[in-house]
């Protein structure tokens, strides 16, 4: 005798497949709808969350990394003893390689007038390690900051650095406001 309301195995599997197909359809539609509504977005770093962990240099799928140090000149103190340029415990304040903090020598120091020096980032050499950013933040005004350079970034769906970032400093930003650095000016590199 067959019990009322009890499904056999075949009916149960059929129902499961239908449910899964329906859920996938709704999910795909939702994702497409979200992308359409949100428009073009790009990956960017929130400088207030960034801890300069070094992973921007090692996790990016682009080599060297699409993350670069930018210099917000408005905030810079143009210091002689620059914490972002010189190694800690440096004995001589000179441009000698042994005194430079940057592992790739990507910062150019130029004398302006006593006692001011200008620091320029050579983007091609910068690997986005954030060492200078940490030094500037510790001893200076924090004018050196890490940002994703959109000329280089390939805008992966799932950014490899965002996945590895320990402070969740990566997020998608609208393409018409692609940079998130702190400072007085909003355009890239002041």
């Amino acid at each position: 005798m067959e019990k009322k309301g009890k499904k056999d195995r075949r009916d149960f599997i059929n129902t499961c497949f239908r449910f899964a197909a329906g859920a996938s359809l709704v999910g795909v539609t939702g994702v497409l709808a979200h992308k359409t509504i949100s428009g073009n977005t790009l990956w960017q770093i929130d400088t207030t969350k960034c801890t300069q962990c070094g992973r921007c240099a090692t996790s990016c799928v682009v080599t060297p990394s699409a993350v670069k140090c930018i210099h917000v000149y408005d905030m810079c103190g143009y210091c002689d003893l620059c914490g972002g340029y010189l190694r800690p415990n440096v004995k001589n304040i000179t441009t000698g390689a042994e005194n430079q903090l940057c592992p790739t020598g990507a910062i150019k120091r130029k004398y302006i007038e006593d006692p001011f020096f200008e620091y320029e980032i050579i983007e091609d050499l910068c690997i986005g390690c954030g060492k200078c950013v940490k030094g500037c933040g510790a001893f200076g005004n924090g004018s050196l900051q890490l940002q994703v350079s959109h000329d280089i970034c390939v805008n992966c769906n799932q950014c490899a650095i965002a996945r590895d970032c320990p402070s969740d400093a990566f997020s998608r930003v609208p393409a018409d406001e692609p940079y998130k650095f702190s400072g007085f000016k909003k355009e890239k590199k002041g």
Partner: protein
Amino acid sequence: MKNKLGLIFSVVLLLLLVGLIAGDLFFEKPKSQKNIYEYDLDELRQVDSSLIAYKETASFLIDGEAVYGLALDSDDNIYVSGRNKLWIFNSNGEFQSSMKVRGDAHCVNVSESGNILLGVGNRVDVRKPNGGLNNSFQIKGAKAYISSIAEKDGVVYIADAGQKIVHQYTIDGKKINLIGGKNLEKGIRGFVVPSPYFDLMLGRQGELWVVNPGRHALEAYNEKGDLISTWERTSMRVDGFGGCCNPSHVAMLSDGSFVTSEKGLERIKIHLPSGDFKSVVAAPSQFDAGTTGLDLAVDSNDRIVVLDPSRKQVRIFELKE
């Protein structure tokens, strides 16, 4: 039987697969990884214990939203200025009174006559010893930002970090002079103030000592604004000052030695009147990392009183026996 086993095996495999996918999607993986580009400040934060000549003997908390400035009066009462308030404690740290201030009082000073001077943005409030408002005047200039203040014989010296100059006013608010403007003929190189830490104090002979933080220097001026003495020590090590702008605050001991506090490497040190390093009062390990604005004062017993804005504490250091 064989079919049933196969089915069970398939279901288990499917569940395992779903579990793995769900784990990858919904659970965070540990993100610990060695930073091969680590900027290690630990070495600089280490201080040889034989150099530390002071010990912390007392501390007390201030119940306020934010604290900025510290001063002592001739009876060693401790004045702390902060957001919308001024607190007064006796030398043992017992609360005496408080008064309202309109705005953030970034600096405070108590003159020999007992006047309490407060720097609030671009405004100077002069209060009578009983706390009543005596006078209030503003410093002109869109960038004016008062970071330190001192008074002697009715003359007020105001460190303006925004305009990188020292203003000399009468206590009634009448402008007298500007001190420290660049004048190479007189040997004055001008103040370099990259961040809003620009301190001044009056020395034992009434001379005005002003920190030139961008040059890691202290400069002394007479009442006419002539440069009479200067010393500077630039170094990342303990014998000098590093970073963009240090020392952030200064005070003077009875023998004319300077007490200095720094930001970046949070430490308090003693420099001889010549500027040479003498000893350490407090090492970076005694402060929260990132602490700035360690304002200083010295009492009649040469105890060093420190305002720690990060912990909202007044901390007192005394020479080790």
